[in-house]
């Protein structure tokens, strides 16, 4: 089957899966918000104390924050960094995990033992002390560094899962046939094995994006990454802990707004990942 035909089938399947469609629409909305939102809605950082915690209105659809600044503009401007960190984390994590998992599963023997030992270390040692150690040596200054830091201790579960998939796939007849035909390892890996892994990896990619958002908030407050006032997690933390908005009836919109965008993003990611799973996993696919 050609790539175009595969994509066509995929789109058709996506259209028929409501969960995937809803998830896809939500994620597309976020993508658009990050790409074009900042150009459409300017962010004025000027502090206007007298206008703090104004309720939602036409001028401020999501109200104002503790310093009288527009909450909607902060959410839109924060989306770029949040999504960039989520995407880059997923990219780095997936790349490392697929590399380690494939190498371990396909090579077997000593290579497999060493790589799985490393994976097990990563799975058993808690992430926070490692982040603290690395964060004290290297300063994180941009989304790339931030994503690299999060990825560093996130690839283990996916690497193990990929290894299992490879171990299973490499015993299949079509791989045996490829070997008998004398096809190169490169061909077997990239033309035979990886296409079969793609759906599995894509689903994990979206799940990792979702987890990265949660992890990034934690790292900001451990001081391992610069404090970004428009990061949604930071906004939520400012609302709940620093400014006490959670205790002020007039200010509840400031608590709810960042919470809602984080929850909606998670929901979109979950729907889309599950929808994809249903479409791409033959065992979950509904009979035609």
């Amino acid at each position, binding site marked *: 089957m050609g790539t175009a035909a595969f994509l066509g089938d995929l789109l058709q399947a996506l259209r028929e899966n409501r969960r995937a469609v809803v998830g896809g629409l939500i994620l597309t909305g976020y993508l658009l918000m990050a790409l074009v939102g900042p150009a459409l809605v300017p962010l004025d*950082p000027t502090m206007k*104390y007298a206008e703090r*915690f104004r309720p939602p209105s036409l001028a401020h659809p999501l109200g104002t924050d503790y*310093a009288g600044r527009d909450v909607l503009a902060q959410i839109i401007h924060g989306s770029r960094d949040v999504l960039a960190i989520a995407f880059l984390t997923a990219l780095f994590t997936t790349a490392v995990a697929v590399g380690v998992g494939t190498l371990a599963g396909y090579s077997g023997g000593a290579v497999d033992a060493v790589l799985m030992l490393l994976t097990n270390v990563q799975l058993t040692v808690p992430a926070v002390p490692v982040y603290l150690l690395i964060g004290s040596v290297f300063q994180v200054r941009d989304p790339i560094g931030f994503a690299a830091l999060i990825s560093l201790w996130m690839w283990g579960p996916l690497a193990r899962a990929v290894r299992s998939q490879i171990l299973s796939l490499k015993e299949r007849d079509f791989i045996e046939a490829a070997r008998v035909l004398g096809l190169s390892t490169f061909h077997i890996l990239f033309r035979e094995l990886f296409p079969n892994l793609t759906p599995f990896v894509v689903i994990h990619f979206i799940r990792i994006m979702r987890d990265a958002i949660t992890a990034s908030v934690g790292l900001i407050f451990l*001081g391992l990454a610069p404090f970004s006032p428009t990061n949604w997690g930071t906004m939520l933390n400012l609302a709940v802990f620093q*400014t006490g908005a959670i*205790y002020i009836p007039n200010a509840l919109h400031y608590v709810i707004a960042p919470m809602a965008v984080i929850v909606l993003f998670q929901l979109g990611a979950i729907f889309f990942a599950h929808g994809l799973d249903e479409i791409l996993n033959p065992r979950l696919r509904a009979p035609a």
Partner: protein
Amino acid sequence: MSRGSSLRARFFFILAALALGLSACAPATPAPGPTASPTPVVVEKVVTPTPAPRPREFVLGTSWEVPPAYHGNPFAPGGVGGAWWFVFQPLLIYVPATGEAIPSLAESFEEAPDRITFRLRQTGWSDGTPFTSKDVWASFVLMKLMWNWPGEVDRVETPDERTAVIVWKQPLANPKALISSAPILVNVTAYGKFAEEAAKWLGQTGAEAEEALNKIRQEVSGFKPEKPVAVGPFQVESVSASEMILTKNPHHYAAKNIGIDRIRFLRWTSNEVMWAFHLAGELDASHAAAPKDVADQILQRQPKTRLQLVTDLSEFALLFNLRKAPFNDVRFRKAIAYLIDRDKVREISYYAGLTSAPYSHGVLKSFEEQWLGKDFLGSLTAYNLDPAKAEALLKEMGWTNGPDGKWRDPTGKAPEFEILAQAGATDWILAAEAIATQLNKHFQVRTRTVEPGVYPTTLRGGQFDMAIQFGSAWWGTAHPLTGYYRLYQGEAAEFTGAKDVMATMKGPQGEDVNVAQALDSLLKEPNPERQKAIVRQLAWITNENLPVLSLLEKQLMIFHVDGVRVTGWPAANDPLWTVAPGAIERFYTHLLIQGILKPAP
């Protein structure tokens, strides 16, 4: 069957099953038995037990080490916790607003230029041993051994059991404030062996003495009694992860005068937890700094809560890392000062504070008039928000303004700066964020929060550009000496690097001023007018060189509830409130001992 009616049927089925289930749980109704001869009915007398009297308690918030780490040694890390000023008591209480000294563990005292002689009260430690002058001696010996403090004390003499004489190395500007901040911590029964041993070696120099002192320090640190032995009015009864309970020390001289039976501490993990306790009416007092709207909510929801503002004798400041460029250039520091609207920072971060603008001279705002006066203040550079002045200074340094409005250094690079703030310190984080927002129009500036455990280490190690910290702080002493010591010799100087790079500075007349010598002169100067002259010299140096940019004078926000569990708080204008800065529990304890604070009827 339609889908709707199917759902309804399921709903009623579940309801019926639930009702059946609940009825099965109900006590069985006795079935009517066969008619029988009436049996005598025994009517049991219902006795309502008299409820145990509710302990008359005072509920506060504080922090402590969670058991099993908790212990009672004040000299070992993690010991005693927030119970400190309830279980330990100073010889006198100093009232900064009036300069009055109220006898506390001492019943009277006499001052001479080189000493204070205390007549001690007849009181007892919680272990039943009497309080004597030897305990005063042991406490000061161990403070010197373990903390190298207070350095001003030469020795403690004990002519008899009830007389203790504290002898200074030289006359001091404000000795009573120092004594007020040094509670009596240990009795000779438990700690005498350490004090005796330490006294042999203290004051001696050389490797042998240092080795011996280190050995004693290790022994003291390793001593971990379960609870502290109290000489103060309360003793530790129990400690858990969530509560610490103190009960009265029965041997204390004021035990009968104190109407409160116990102190209950709730765990103070962060300010917002204290806000929640106040909103729920669980606390009688705390000084959890709160944004204006939160403070308003607390006062509105708990009408018996009052808010007292009293100077904390400290200020927040923006610390510069004087070891690194461009902060090592005073012109750059001045440019930063001209780019920050400090009143905006105050509004956002600590609305109850007093803005330090337009100066940054190291004297607290509320003491400006007393120490500096209007004429002198007029001679200082005023740092109001003035981007034009900042621009002139930056251009003088060879900086250029880029098309994006951001400044470039002489190499053409647009530098990125970080402002550090301690994680969990809500007001500091908001101050950092408010400054970063203002400076972002001119530079790339971001805030970074650092865990409290590593914050001082990070600053001491010079791993920062700018940071929020206490600048000048006079905790408990109400004297500029403490602030200037902090800025040029103490903790703030270690953070900024001022200790090394600002050792000798130009004074107002262009004279060379050795800052350490000026501080020493201020320490020894008893004449108020001559003290003022030294303070003005240091104020000028501080304002013109900006080792830190003062942001605001902190005012303690003391939320206190009158008429629920306790009553009798001092009136808003009572100078006693000024005992609170530096150790608010010392203030609460004083009110209880004096019988000012009583159980609510």
